[in-house]
């Protein structure tokens, strides 16, 4: 008795240890194994925010931000983004998603995106399982796969009570989505398993294989199936049909109003673009391998009413800030931001109506740690990114930039 309870205690301890090991750090996902040209030239996330990075079970986290669908979307590889789903990158249902909106439209189903469009997303999550997780916005694109946004570590602490997921049906019935309907499922399964066992045990209890085989080969197979066997079969046949009929009657009575699975597509328009922004043409792009720097020569035309300066380059979720113009954001994942990684020459602002050639360098080991330098080994060595220009009042103008990029392997070659 004592040894049994000790064993039980050890088993419980093992389960607790196991679960707490699960409820610990969960590393980033497989985003870095996606080809760089896909990450840079598909969905460009920006303004991403996580309302908190530490919460308890049952607390809420809001993930919000925007993304631009890259103008030069690689149609030949990814098709068009005509079927997409606004998803969330987490390691399983450690959060439950309570809301998902795109430009204010409920994203319960899938939608389509306009190439070149801007969209604002807002996802509300509720903490379910303790642990530390990498939480990303994510968009599944049919035929192309998942395009992940930037990820931030979020810790769900134990406490906050056991997780519950209350919801209400249209008729006002309150249900807990975690467990509703399970007892009915298990109950009916047990009923059918009992019927099956009756049938199986009836036959298995007798000599089974070789004795029967001998009689069959002798031509005496009729001895193997008795009148009782056939009566049982007939009875089970009728009973099965009866149980199905009764079961359906019970279900229809208990749940008179049901709806089929909802599979419609939702249409959402992109955000309006300012009538006059900043136009950018790429003149030349190089990636200097040893120095981990991307050099861009850009022809910039300022069509706005005020002078603007380049404040940021963002691509594949990494951000290079021009420290002279943009402030660092401490809340943004530190492994994805180079607060002073962007240098612009000449530094002076571009006046309204002016066209200027600027030389931009984006320097940081991020190019390698995020495996974007592997662009050189892609079958498509074209990069893409989002440039942000800012005027003195903080108004922002977004322009995409992209095109061929050449590697250089020594500084003197520039």
């Amino acid at each position, binding site marked *: 008795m004592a040894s049994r309870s000790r064993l039980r205690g050890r088993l419980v301890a093992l389960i607790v240890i196991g679960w707490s090991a699960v409820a610990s750090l969960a590393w980033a996902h497989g985003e870095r194994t996606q080809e760089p040209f896909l990450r840079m030239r598909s969905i460009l996330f920006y303004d991403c925010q996580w309302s908190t990075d530490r919460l308890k079970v049952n607390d809420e986290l809001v993930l919000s931000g925007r993304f631009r669908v890259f103008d030069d979307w690689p149609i030949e590889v990814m098709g068009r983004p005509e079927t997409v789903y606004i998803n969330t990158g987490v390691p399983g249902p450690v959060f*439950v998603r309570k809301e998902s909106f795109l430009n204010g439209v409920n994203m319960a189903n899938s939608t389509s995106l306009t190439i070149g469009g801007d969209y604002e997303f807002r996802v509300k999550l509720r903490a379910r399982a303790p642990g530390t997780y990498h939480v990303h916005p994510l968009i599944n694109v049919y035929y192309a796969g998942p395009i992940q946004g930037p990820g931030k570590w979020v810790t769900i602490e134990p406490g906050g009570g056991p997780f519950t997921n209350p919801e209400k049906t249209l008729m006002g019935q309150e249900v807990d989505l975690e467990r509703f309907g399970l007892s009915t499922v298990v109950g009916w399964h047990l009923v059918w398993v009992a019927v099956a066992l009756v049938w199986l045990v009836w036959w298995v209890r007798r000599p089974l294989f070789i004795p029967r085989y001998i009689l069959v080969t002798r031509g005496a197979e009729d001895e193997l199936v008795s009148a009782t066997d056939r009566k049982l079969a007939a009875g089970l046949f009728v009973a099965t049909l009866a149980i199905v009929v009764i079961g359906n009657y019970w279900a229809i009575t208990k749940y008179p109003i049901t709806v089929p699975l909802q599979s419609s597509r939702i249409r959402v328009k992109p955000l309006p673009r300012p009538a006059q922004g900043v136009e950018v043409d790429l003149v030349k792009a190089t990636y200097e391998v040893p120095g981990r720097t991307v050099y861009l020569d850009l022809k910039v035309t300022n069509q706005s009413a005020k002078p603007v300066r380049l404040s940021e380059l963002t691509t594949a979720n990494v951000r290079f800030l021009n420290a002279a113009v943009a402030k660092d954001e401490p809340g943004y994942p530190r492994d994805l931001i180079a607060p002073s990684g962007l240098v612009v020459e000449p530094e002076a602002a571009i006046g309204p109506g002016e066209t200027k050639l600027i030389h931009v360098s984006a320097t940081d080991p991020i190019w390698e740690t995020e495996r974007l330098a592997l662009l050189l080994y892609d079958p498509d060595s074209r990069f893409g990114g989002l440039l942000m220009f800012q005027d003195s009042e903080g108004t922002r103008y977004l322009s995409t930039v992209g095109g061929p990029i050449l590697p250089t392997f020594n500084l003197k070659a520039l």
Partner: protein
Amino acid sequence: MMQRKAASAEPAYGDVNPGSSDPQQLYRTIDWLLIPLLFMVVQAAFHIHAMLTVGDWDFWTDWKDRRWWLVVTPVSLITFPAAIQYVLWEKFRLPIGATVCVTALLLGQWVSRTLNFYGWAYFPLNFVWPATLIPGAILLDCVLILTRSYLLTGIFGGMLWGVIFYFANWPMLAAFHLPMNHNGVLLSLADLQGFEYIRTGTPEYIRIIERGTLRTFGKDVTPVSAFFSGFVCVLMYFVWHLMGRLLSTVRFIQKI
């Protein structure tokens, strides 16, 4: 003296089955070895077949629709029952082929959903429960023993197998089709489960489900799909009856 110890210079059957000259003991031993052997091989092979042909519909409640699930599941899963029915009935007059298959399958599915889907990935069990095929299997086996005819089993049993599937599972599924108001959008409870319990690798659009009802029949989609399912099951039964004959070949060859 009533008995004397038999003298024998030959190696006795007793070497195999010490103390018994009755082959029935050997046969019963073989029974007890073959029962787990056949149960496990049917479970493993049938489960692999099932998970890779109809798995997605069976894994998630928000795939269990009225157009695809109730057609593909019976059609794909009448395969092994038809083949095993042939082997067990033809060689042993055992009318349990279909029931063995689906019971073995169900055991594998519940173990997986509990230990993996719930125990590992932490999806609630009410989201990932498997469907039951036992009613159709009982009917298929009973038709075989009552008619003693593969032709009649294929036609009537196969039809019943296909038709009854949705209705046998509806008592379990009905609760998951309660209507919900999700921020102004109508969803079924199953849809809401799919929305809330995040699956990064399974976007909503990837569901192969009804996306617009059958034109002629208004809301009476289910009986139409069920009878279509039954029809295809009849054909599938005969194809896999032949597979059963083929795969239980007893040929030997000299060179490979």
